[in-house]
């Protein structure tokens, strides 16, 4: 009897926390890891220009996929509480080339992890750290490509969704805690095939944590982060359902010049694909050009991509993530993420 009570206790302890309304964000604390939640990521994308005039896109993401909730039994150092993995991609716009790499680690010996003195996340040589001036230092490299960047937020952090959570599906907990720094001044160096150049540009930082935010009926999403040249930004997402529809729990945020965010409900915007590209590698067909319309803001935009092939073909988590250009009444650039096209995304 005793042991049953004990195991029940352990079970209660050892379960994941759901992202429920009412989360109070505190910075810089919330930049750190939220181990009580199952899934978490730190997402950096940006457009950089080199002195030579060349344009690059980059993506560096640190993922934490929880395996066992905190407090789970076991003392072996090898017991993994989470899967630590990271993606690094570079788009060489002028050459029309895309490059991507994944690192995965158990982190049993501290070679990968989240939240030590200074670093928010790291895997071997890839790392994300806070800088003293409230910015970030980002490093990733591999196969001759590398970024070593300093990023400084030009606006405050904007919290997405309503009441502290960004709802992804119907029902309590099918949501994430989600904030962004929508415009970070970025400087540093970028290497392509060992050739290093000084670069400067603008980045976007997303930090999101959740537990089982997706339902089995959802297979992925379309997500946009757009930096308009007028100093405003737009984040939009659509949760895609198995039957080909869009989940009503989709939303967006419009960020004003002063950094304040405006919540955009599902019916406040529309997204219409206008061109498709079929991946030779995975066979997935991605909608790579869109018509974006936010009538309340008077926004009528068309997105396209300078490089069609910006697919991270990584087996079970294959997705398209790449630099886009924005035209229309206003111009700008951004990143687009298309998931669940090669295979439904599960377990997030």
């Amino acid at each position, binding site marked *: 009897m005793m042991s049953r009570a004990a195991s029940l206790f352990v079970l209660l302890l050892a379960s994941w926390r759901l992202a429920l309304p009412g989360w109070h964000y505190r910075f810089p604390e919330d930049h750190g890891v939220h181990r009580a939640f199952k899934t978490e990521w730190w997402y950096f994308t940006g457009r950089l220009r080199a002195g030579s005039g060349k344009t690059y896109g980059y993506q560096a993401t640190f993922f934490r*996929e929880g*395996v*066992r909730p905190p407090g789970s*039994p*076991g*003392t*072996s*150092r*090898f*017991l*993994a509480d989470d*899967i630590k993995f990271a993606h690094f991609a570079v788009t060489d716009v002028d050459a029309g080339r895309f490059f991507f790499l994944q690192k*995965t*680690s*158990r982190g*049993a*010996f501290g*070679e990968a992890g989240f939240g030590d003195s200074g670093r928010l996340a790291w895997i071997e040589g890839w790392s994300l750290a806070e800088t003293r001036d409230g910015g970030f230092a980002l490093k990733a490299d591999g196969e001759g490509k590398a970024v070593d960047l300093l990023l400084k937020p030009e606006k405050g952090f904007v919290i997405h969704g309503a009441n502290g959570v960004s709802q992804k599906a119907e029902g309590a907990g099918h949501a994430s805690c989600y904030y962004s720094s929508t415009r970070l001044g970025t400087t540093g160096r970028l290497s392509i095939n060992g050739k290093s150049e000084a670069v400067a540009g603008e980045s976007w930082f997303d930090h999101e944590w959740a537990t089982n935010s997706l339902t089995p009926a959802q297979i992925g999403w379309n997500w946009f982060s757009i930096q308009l040249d007028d100093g405003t930004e737009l984040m939009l997402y659509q949760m895609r359902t198995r039957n080909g529809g869009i989940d009503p729990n989709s939303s967006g945020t419009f960020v004003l010049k002063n950094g304040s965010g405006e919540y955009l409900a599902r019916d406040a915007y529309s997204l219409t694909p206008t061109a498709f590209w079929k991946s030779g590698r995975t066979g997935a067909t991605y909608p790579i050009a869109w018509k974006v319309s936010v009538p309340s803001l008077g926004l009528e935009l068309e997105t396209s991509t300078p490089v069609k092939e910006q697919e991270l073909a990584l087996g079970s988590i294959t997705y398209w993530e790449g630099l886009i250009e924005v035209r229309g009444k206003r111009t700008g650039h951004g990143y687009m993420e298309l998931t669940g096209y090669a295979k439904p995304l599960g*377990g997030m």
Partner: protein
Amino acid sequence: MTSQLFVLFRRQVLRDAMRHKVLAALNILSVGLGVGLYLAIQIANHSANRALAAGVDVVAGKANLEVRGDIPEALFPSLAGLPGVSGCTPVVEGVVTLPDYPGEYLRILGVDMFTNEPFRTFDIGSGERPFELERWLAQPGGVAVSVEFARKHGLKAGDRLRALVNSRRKDLEINFLLDPEAAVTMDHVAAMDIGWAQELFGVQGKLSSVQMIVSNPQEAKLPLPPGLTAAPPAQRSFQVQKMLSAFELNLTALSLVSLFVGMFLIHNTVSASVARRRVEIGILRSLGASRNEVRLLFLGEAFLFGAGGSIVGIAGGVLLSNLLVGSVAKTISSLYVLVSIDRFFVSPAHLLAAAGFGLAASLAAAWHPANEAAATDPVRALSMGIRMEEKAARVNLWVVAGFLSLALACAASWLALKTGPPLLGFVAAFLVLFGFVCFSPLLIRMLGGAAPKEVVLRLAAENFRRSIHRNSPTVAALSAAIALVIGVSIMIFSFRNTVDVWMNRGFAADLFVTPASNETIGLEAFVPPEAISFLEKQPETLAVDTFRELRVPLGGETAPLGVVKGADRRNLPFVGGGRKAKMAKFFGGDYVVVTESFARRWRKGEGDRLSLATPGGPKEFEIAGVYYDYTRDEGLIMIDRKAFERYWKDARVQSLALYLRDRGMAEGLAERFRRRFSAQGEFAVYSNRALKQRAFQVFDQTFAVTYVLRAIAVIVAALGIFLSLTTVITEREREIGVFRAVGGSRRQVGGMIFAEAGFIGVAASVLGLAAGCSLALVLTFVVNKAFFGWTISLQFPWPLLAATPFWIVPASLLAAWVPALRASRIPIAAAVRAE
């Protein structure tokens, strides 16, 4: 072969073989048995080697360097970061038994899916449930079993398995199915996340091995703490095979005896066929056939038997190996290393060797009669009435050969013991066997010279003596087979008695306790401390001795180290006596004692020093004494527990021996212990008597294979009697005809043949007993000593020896049944046509 010779071959040999179908079949069968037995043993040995090598391969995968020992896990990142290392993965290994599947076990590899990708030799996630890293990492006790294992037991992903680990029950759940690459087939291998494997086996902080891919494995100098070794994984399978080689060679040698016996039969058949066709040979020769052509004809006949026998033997050997493999695997598991042979490996080389042996033996056996045929003088061959029996004069030559062979056997024995190689022991055994059978002509002449009053017996004795050329090989074959039975029986009997005496002295405790899994998988599991303290506190208990075994690096290899508490009560029998002084040393300081087989294998003796790698660095231990031990031919170093804990800082034990106030209390205490700790059979608890019984069970299992080998040798020999008498009758057709014509009855003819068979039986028994006793000497004192380093006190199973003629003679008579019947039915008129 010229076309002309081929025609001759067809007419003379093939047609003749067709005419004497039974004879030909028997010859083929006798070669077939020998070839089959040899092949079956080779397949069993080879399959065992492959299974063991696969065990190494499945752990090491594609690694070219492997670090082994009691590895602190923190070493792993520093090895992975060394220059020149392109792959590095940690492994935790352990074995669990499955109480729901008696006798079954799983060798669990704790692997790191994040780093082992370049090493992997298996796919995890075949079948309906594909691999998912998250499930793999998340599930406590999640284990991937092989597709074969799952199929065998009707298991699927999601099923639960109860396992015993260190006498504790653990729940496992099959998370995925594991599909080994074709080259690596091990049904008992299972994989688990390394973290869960550490938890399962309670080895947090430790690794069993680190597998590495380095640019130059031979030159790699790794900064390793003391006690750890780095070597290419292939070296480990090489060491295992080296350990088994003596055992496997023994089986091979025994399996060849049947072929040796079969050779006598071929010799007999071919010489009979020479005798039968003396006239034809004469005609052929006078028509211009050369001596060589005649020789080739008869060698061709032998070739026919050899080829036929090889085909039969290869088919039979493959079948027979199915029967032997289980027994061989059990013996290897109980004596050397845990192995289960799940696949048969038949290499073309073994098939070729088997066929080669069959052909070579047949040709060698036919060489002498074929030469005789070639030497036949056409004139004498064509004149009727001259018989072959004049050859009897060669008896003395054989006697000389016999003595020479025995003298050589002595020399070979001496060399085997003094200088080696141990293989000379088998040469000696063969020479003894051969030496004794050389005396068969002499024995036949002596026995046949006895002149009993009774007319049938007298005629039989006379025939027995006169057909010395035919009966010698028969008696030789039979006596060789008997000698094998007797020799091996005496050796096993002596061995068993020696072990019995040794166990009575050495196993003085009243109760023995060990985790049950140790019975299936060898000493792997530990006794939990609470079980020890429980037993120590019981009122019946006088003392609790403990034992633990581990492998320690020694001179580039590893050797087993036994850690004992209370060895004084074990009463170790030392070579050269002096127990008190040696044991005092053993308990007093940095001393070890070693077994006799260890001393032989490592060429170390009393007073020598052994440098053992302790976790704190190498440490010298002096050998306080060498003691008799029959548990393993690999040998054992024994160290006192106090000394061990001083340097190894490890107090775990694997088995307990309890001394009680009264042996009668053993059952009661065992029952209480079982109720408290072993409700689900987590422990094996043996009383003194039960342990001895169990030890003998293992002992007898070890020799089970030899019983098969002996039985087949006797069957071949019995075939020999049948064959020999059948030919003798064909040869004597005329004579029998005359005997019947002058009034001999059918009964008398039959009786004569029976009596002759009896003479063969008696002669073979006498010779076989003498040869068998001598063979036992060689097996016990030379082969055993040279290969395994065991001292066995020779003892004779007198009743068994005395009984030999009582089963050999009836067996001979039984074999004579059909020939006697045939002889009595020979029609007189046809038989005496030539007179």
